[in-house]
């Protein structure tokens, strides 16, 4: 340890802090869509990871199409691809809600199984269409490389991009939920369904909209992840437990809780992975979360809604 000079230790701290922040933004992005669905509707969507993969594959497809038909557009396509990913995932989510989820709201345990089935089907669909190998879209030049504020500090641009996107999206969702008409209706439905119906809110439509919104956000998250890793048919399922723990740990209906818990989990994990071997760092983090959840079953910021 003495071999490090003071400036090197400083750089390690900065970069380790950045990698924690980067993990935080990844977790936040993943959890945001779920926080909307699970927090607002109480529905556990185990296919959430597959909706992320759907977004990622959409970006991959757009990159392939851009290369084939409009090579000059290549530097800009990514921004549009994110929008398309949102639309595709939201559309599929809306269809799933219409075809399956709306029959299951009264049976929360059964939604677990049904959405798991959906996730298997989506995984196999990805595998049949895009092949079992992992794919990466061609990223525009401006997303590559890294900042170098000093000689020893190295901050990757794609990490900054994901961070910015996740902050933007969080702000957007919060504004939408608390400042827009539809957001108001959504919150009203969560708080008292019968009363909302009585004042003329179409709660069935609100449900479909909320579910589609959550899936769309998952699509955006998946699209953003193409900048930091490749996409395979089963990459969605790798995230699912982390995502759920972030949401449950934060307290289901609280946006602030989701942010705080994503930050806490990310920092714990990146610090423990620095000191312990890879998987054991993760095990320690998960154990800590589960232990805290046993003491505070409703999460850090429980909602004050009567059920």
């Amino acid at each position, binding site marked *: 340890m003495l071999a490090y000079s003071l400036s090197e230790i400083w750089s390690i701290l900065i970069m380790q802090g950045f990698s924690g922040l980067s993990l935080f933004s990844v977790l936040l992005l993943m959890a945001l869509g779920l926080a909307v669905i699970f927090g607002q509707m109480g529905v556990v969507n185990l296919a959430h990871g597959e909706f992320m993969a759907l977004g990622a594959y959409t970006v991959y497809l757009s990159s392939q199409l851009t290369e084939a038909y409009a090579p000059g557009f290549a530097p800009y396509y990514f921004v549009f691809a994110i929008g398309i990913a949102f639309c595709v995932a939201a559309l599929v989510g809306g269809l799933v809600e219409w075809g399956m989820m709306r029959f299951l709201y009264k049976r929360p*345990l059964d939604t*677990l199984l*049904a959405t798991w089935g*959906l996730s*298997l*089907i989506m995984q196999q669909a990805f595998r049949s269409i895009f092949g079992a190998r992992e794919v990466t879209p061609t990223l525009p030049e401006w997303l590559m490389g890294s900042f170098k504020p000093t000689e020893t500090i190295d901050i990757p641009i794609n990490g900054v991009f994901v961070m910015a996107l996740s902050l933007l999206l969080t702000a957007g969702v919060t504004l939408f939920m608390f400042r827009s008409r539809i957001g108001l209706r959504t919150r009203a439905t969560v708080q008292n369904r019968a009363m909302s119906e009585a004042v003329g809110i179409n709660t069935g439509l609100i449900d479909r909209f909320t579910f589609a919104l959550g899936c769309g956000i998952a699509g955006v998250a998946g699209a953003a992840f193409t900048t930091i890793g490749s996409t395979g048919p089963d990459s969605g399922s790798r995230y699912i437990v982390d995502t759920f723990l972030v949401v449950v740990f934060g307290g289901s209906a609280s946006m602030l809780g989701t942010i705080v818990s994503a930050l806490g989990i990310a920092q714990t994990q990146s610090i423990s992975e620095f000191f312990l071997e*890879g998987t*054991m760092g993760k095990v320690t983090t998960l154990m800590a979360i589960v232990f805290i959840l046993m003491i505070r079953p409703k999460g850090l910021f429980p909602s004050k809604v009567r059920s």
Partner: protein
Amino acid sequence: MNKFYKNILGGKAGIIGLAILAVLLLVVLPSSLQIFRLNLVGKYLTYAFVSVGLVLLWGNAGVLSLGQGIFFGLGGYCMAMFLKLEASDPITTKIQSTPGIPDFMDWNQLTALPAIWVPFKSLPFSLFAVVAVPALLAFILGSAMFKRRVGGVYFSVITQAFALILSLGIDGNQGLTGGRNGITDLRTLWGWDIRSESAQYVLYFVCCLLLIGCILVGRFVVSSRMGRLLLAMKDREDRVLFSGYDVASFKVFVYCLSAAMCGIGGALFVLQVGFISPSLVGIVPSIEMVIFAAVGGKMSLLGAVYGTLAVNTGKSLFSENFPQLWLFLMGGLFIAVVMFFPNGLAGLWESARARLSRLSPRSGAAKKIIPMPAMPQASNLVETEPKLP
């Protein structure tokens, strides 16, 4: 005696159902299948222990655990540790740098047997641990969660997280557990070669008999006063709670019972298949085990066995012939069972039987069969029964 006949064997219909299953498992399958296929059926039957446990836990008590693979794996590891120690005696392992310890420990530069492995040199202790370790863990987890009234989807998600923790933990501690490869190359049980054909037959029959034993235990629980309480809890938990029952303790008990059954299944899996690895512990196998029970019918103990056999046979047939289609089919099965056949094969069988007996001239029989067993009468229960201590 009469009580035994009515409650445990389930009267005439129950005895017939059990007899059919026993004949199928003990006579028809062994006489018609080759030993390779029979061994496969034996492997599926070890999953049926998990399904039977899930029928009690999920179907009757309404608690869905997505982490039953934890207990299956723990039971399996307890058995495998004993077998591995027997397989690595100092003579056969004399080429290792430390003879007498399992080979994977030697590869990981361990020079002595870890303390946790030492008790597993004894067979009685190992057999005890197969049941006790899963039950103990279930007791700890269950008391922590049920006493704080963690239920519903929260419980499911947390058990799923535990399945991930345990599989990652086993994976990460290679020297202690064999890591991702698991514990392999198991040979003998007290000098008896478990890989021989005759041993596989014997183990198959042991597996069947233990499974039938578990079903009888399950029937005893379901038909007892506690079984009715569990059903009442599933439908109106707060009502049972306010009537003065300690809801959490009942749930903890059923959770432990199902965990113990999983442990037995895991141990038999190791004996018949000859290895255990973290791939049997994680999220995916745990949730697949739920679908076995769901296909059989989550309220039916016998259905759970048929469901397990049906899904696994389908799985091996399809993944041999159309590997592409299998996941579509499996996914479709999850959705179809939930949306269209909530009572699984048992439900289909009941309705088919009801329809048949309506067609037949002796329609009096139909009346006895049609009522579903799922109707708890919570109000009666509360009025007529004294408080349990």
